[in-house]
């Protein structure tokens, strides 16, 4: 399949005139694309590549260029609320007005620094706790009886399918001053005053760990389940005690799962908005929330864009590692 590249697209599509392509053919955009590509001498192979490629290029990559562009613009009270970067003068000279004030603002204002560092800290600590809770669960699942394994896997996936927002919401009812925990503790007479848990950093950590735990467990489980059990038997046979076997065999071999899980938690957690907005207090500064507020509350699109660029700079290294890793896993 992969090495086939002989026949022009038209012939292929026509010859493989399957129902789906007939249906697709009724959509004008599809028809246009096919004819255009045919004229340009593309083969079926390149058409198959081009369709998702162009989509992602247009709706994923190109938007970042606009973020960069607008982060260099000035905020205006207008629609859209920013100045334009390029202007044609009367003599048809192109004038580029770059404005680095937004970045200067980010660097000079303490608020952004605090938010920036706090996001990294919150994401890092949450990732650590996800790993501590998730690893034994994934390990236990992988070692469970095969008939149980699928049930447990289903139990991990189930919350993932239910609304993220509503699961975060559930914690409000549990943590607030007259919430479930405080009610139980006061009912038992352990405390007299309600413990303040809502709108604290603690609540944010809890929310992130809770929401992202399945992202940690799934890659770990996939890795640990594949682990050849005879390796552990061989280690035992060679006189290695279970704990040592875990440290020297299981742990190093599960490193890819640990890395994948950690990155899947860390990267989105840095830019998390919903959890700090619902569970955190006004002083829980996280960069995603700052971006949101700049955009929706202050309507300062250029500064919001500058914040987005700043987040990307923080995440570019983990994202690249993640991608290398995905490519490697797919290749293996």
């Amino acid at each position, binding site marked *: *399949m992969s090495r086939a590249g002989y026949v022009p697209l038209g012939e292929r*599509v026509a010859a493989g005139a399957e129902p789906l392509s007939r249906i697709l053919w009724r959509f004008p955009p599809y028809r246009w694309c096919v004819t255009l590509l045919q004229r340009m001498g593309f083969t079926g192979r390149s058409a198959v590549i081009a369709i998702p490629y162009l989509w992602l290029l247009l*709706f994923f990559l190109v938007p970042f260029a606009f973020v960069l562009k607008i982060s260099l613009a000035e905020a205006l009270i207008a629609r859209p609320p920013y100045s334009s970067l390029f202007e044609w003068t009367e003599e048809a000279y192109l004038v580029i007005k770059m404005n680095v004030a937004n970045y200067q603002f980010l660097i000079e204002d303490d608020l952004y620094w605090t938010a920036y560092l706090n996001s990294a800290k919150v994401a890092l600590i949450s990732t650590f706790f996800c790993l501590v809770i998730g690893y034994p669960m994934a390990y236990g699942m992988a070692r469970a009886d095969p008939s149980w394994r699928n049930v447990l896997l289903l139990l991990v996936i189930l919350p993932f399918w239910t609304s993220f927002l509503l699961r975060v919401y559930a914690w409000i009812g549990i943590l607030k001053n007259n919430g479930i925990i405080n009610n139980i503790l006061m009912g038992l007479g352990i405390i007299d005053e309600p413990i303040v848990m809502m709108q604290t950093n603690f609540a944010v950590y809890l929310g992130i760990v809770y929401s992202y735990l399945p992202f940690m467990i799934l890659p770990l489980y996939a890795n640990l389940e594949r682990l050849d059990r005879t390796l552990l038997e061989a280690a035992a046979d060679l006189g290695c005690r279970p704990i040592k076997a875990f440290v020297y065999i299981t742990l190093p071999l599960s490193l890819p799962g640990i890395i994948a899980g950690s990155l899947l938690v860390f990267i989105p957690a840095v830019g998390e908005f919903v959890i700090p907005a619902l569970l955190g207090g006004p002083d829980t500064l996280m960069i995603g929330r700052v971006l949101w507020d700049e955009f929706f509350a202050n309507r300062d699109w250029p500064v919001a864009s500058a914040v987005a660029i700043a987040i990307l700079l923080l995440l570019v290294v983990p994202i690249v590692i993640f991608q290398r890793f995905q490519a490697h896993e797919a290749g293996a």
Partner: protein
Amino acid sequence: MNNNRSYFLISCMVFGFAFLYVPILSLIIFSFNKSKLVTVWAGFSTKWYGALLQNEQILQAAWISLRIAFVNACFAVALGTLAGFVLARLGRFRGRTLFTGMVTAPLVMPEVITGLSLLLLFVAMQDLIGWPQGRGITTITIAHITFSMAYVAVIVQSRLSSVDESVEEAALDLGARPAKVFFVITLPIIAPALVSGWLLAFTMSLDDLVIASFVSGPGSSTLPMVVFSKVRLGVSPEINALASIIVLLVSMGVIAAGYLMHRQQKIRQRDIQFAIAANK
């Protein structure tokens, strides 16, 4: 030694699953609470479900969300399958590294960035070519397709890489053209992955608050946006009722799917054993 270890593992798992499920259970329990104070039990009642069904705003938002989710899931499966196929089967081509990057990056990209960047794109496109006119259901759908197709692509890619490529080569060898091989051999073999990809894309779209908030316009508030604005003002038993309904629907779906898969696997195993036994 071994026992201690398994006790430790079992208690970890019990704790972990309790952690995952207690909040969801509390949501469901208090949806049947008579009192408006969500967390103080005042007797059993189903009145909040009634109230939910009377709430025009929520119902309308749910309808918008379902429509977006449906269209999104179909497009995401089509595009994601192509992308996964390209990654798993088409080997090297110019720009493959960039392509791989664009497929995997949306999996981890913080939603605020995706949302903001797409909004800026839509604004600029409207400026340049006059489309999309304003923002609403179309822009939300496009945004959702972009990130959910990445998930579908990853599912399809991992499924395809476990399918022996020579099965497709055999079809070519027997005279089927590439397009036909794709539809008659590849797609049926990976059909289960397509179903789970579709469901995942559907629920992710239903679930998304942040990206939709950026790219929505007047009159296109999705369910999560309405829920968020309500939740920000404090807890509301109607939301508990809504959550219970969603949990119920999803669990029924997931359990049914799990049961079907389990049964299929059992039949398959029996067949294999039968085939081996018959051969002896």
